[in-house]
């Protein structure tokens, strides 16, 4: 079985985090590559220099970014949310720091203190990198050594650090669930050909613990369940109170899900991907990676969680050009013509 796996390894969020902090240090033709110089009212953008009378270009650039994000989501699902959104990157980094301090130190005030100290360091560094996009970063850092920041620089570093600390350290994925406008709007861009994180119920169901060494359904020759039966088992497992409890199966009739709960445990939003597609799912792929690991340990044939479109299940070929995509491409082309065309 081939599963499309467009989720990217953990290296990508790390690379993007480093790219943000490297951005103010980037030089272009002897100048800072990205600098919105407030004092002189000019914007440097990789060799492009914009003055006060030219807000149209910035608006077109913003519109291009928004349209490209919509097109990406339409074609590839929520890859932005799971892998590139600053909220995901920073809460991931804060979570990694918290997990590392818990591994190294015994829980208690000392672990808490170290964790918050590291969080504060990360937040302040983020604030400095951010202000470095508005005030030349080399001079900003040079003046930091002898407390030479102006009031507004100090204010924005503190403000941005506090916002980072609150959003990434305290609110985490609450932001994705309750505050993010894109999370609410993105279902409009989805159709049957848009991939999403999905559990292969005909392979996995009925789920359950079993003695080791029985082999997967392919080794046992059990075959796949039909979709309706698989859905019935999923419903019974998800709503035991409504369905009168879960049915018991002999070990050789079980599907490949051993009901270990690893997929729910690693999910940043504590969703159970087995209960069907969920609006809150960020498509980060953590569940799929955890499940693939367990399946490999059990020496089962494949994976139970895949990133693919519902249309693929019905055997339809993926259509890349669909009405919403064509519309977005047209808008993108028009914006690019506006940006690059003659004035």
């Amino acid at each position: 079985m081939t599963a499309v796996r467009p989720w990217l390894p953990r290296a990508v969020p790390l690379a993007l985090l480093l790219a943000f902090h490297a951005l103010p240090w980037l030089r272009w033709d002897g100048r800072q590559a990205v600098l919105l110089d407030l004092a002189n009212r000019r914007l440097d953008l990789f060799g492009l220099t914009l003055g006060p009378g030219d807000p149209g270009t910035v608006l077109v650039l913003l519109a291009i970014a928004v349209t490209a994000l919509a097109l990406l989501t339409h074609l590839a699902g929520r890859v932005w949310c799971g892998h590139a959104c600053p909220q995901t990157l920073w809460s991931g980094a804060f979570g990694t720091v918290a997990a590392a301090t818990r591994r190294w130190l015994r829980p208690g005030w000392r672990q808490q203190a170290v964790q918050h100290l590291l969080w504060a360091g990360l937040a302040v560094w983020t604030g400095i990198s951010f202000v470095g996009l508005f005030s030349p970063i080399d001079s900003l850092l040079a003046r930091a050594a002898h407390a030479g920041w102006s009031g507004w620089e100090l204010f924005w570093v503190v403000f941005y650090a506090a916002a980072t600390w609150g959003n990434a350290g305290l609110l985490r994925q609450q932001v994705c669930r309750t505050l993010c406008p894109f999370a609410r709007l993105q279902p409009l861009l989805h159709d049957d050909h848009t991939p999403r994180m999905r559990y292969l119920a005909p392979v996995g169901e009925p789920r359950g613990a079993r003695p080791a060494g029985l082999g997967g359904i392919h080794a046992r020759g059990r075959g796949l369940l039909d979709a309706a039966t698989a859905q019935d088992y999923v419903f019974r497992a998800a709503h035991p109170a409504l369905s009168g409890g879960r049915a018991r199966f002999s070990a050789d009739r079980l599907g490949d899900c051993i009901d270990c709960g690893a997929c729910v445990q690693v999910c940043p939003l504590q969703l159970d991907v087995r209960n069907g597609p969920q609006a809150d799912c960020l498509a980060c792929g953590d569940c799929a990676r955890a499940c693939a690991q367990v399946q490999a340990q059990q020496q089962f044939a494949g994976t139970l969680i895949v990133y693919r479109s519902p249309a693929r299940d019905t055997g339809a070929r993926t259509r890349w050009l669909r009405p919403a995509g064509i519309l977005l491409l047209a808008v993108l082309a028009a914006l690019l013509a506006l940006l690059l065309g003659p004035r």
Partner: protein
Amino acid sequence: MPPPSSIATERRLQAWGGVLWPSFLVACLATLLLFAFVDPLQLARAGAPGHAPSRELACTLGFFAVWAITAASSALTLCLVRPRAPADDDEPLG
């Protein structure tokens, strides 16, 4: 089912976030547009004659002024879309 306290927390978070966050995004865009056309120093001179602030300070204050306005708009929307308080059920019918 999450415990009621976490539902209450989530509601509060949604109310505060729903007011502050969209207004922040719109304020960023509005400030960008405002100061693309208007020199922040000119605005500062008009708003506070006699003081000599820097452009950065004027931009910072301008941003928060715009954010306050957009947040007020978000807060009013929140008030209007909230369900009315339930009528007093103890009142006898007829």
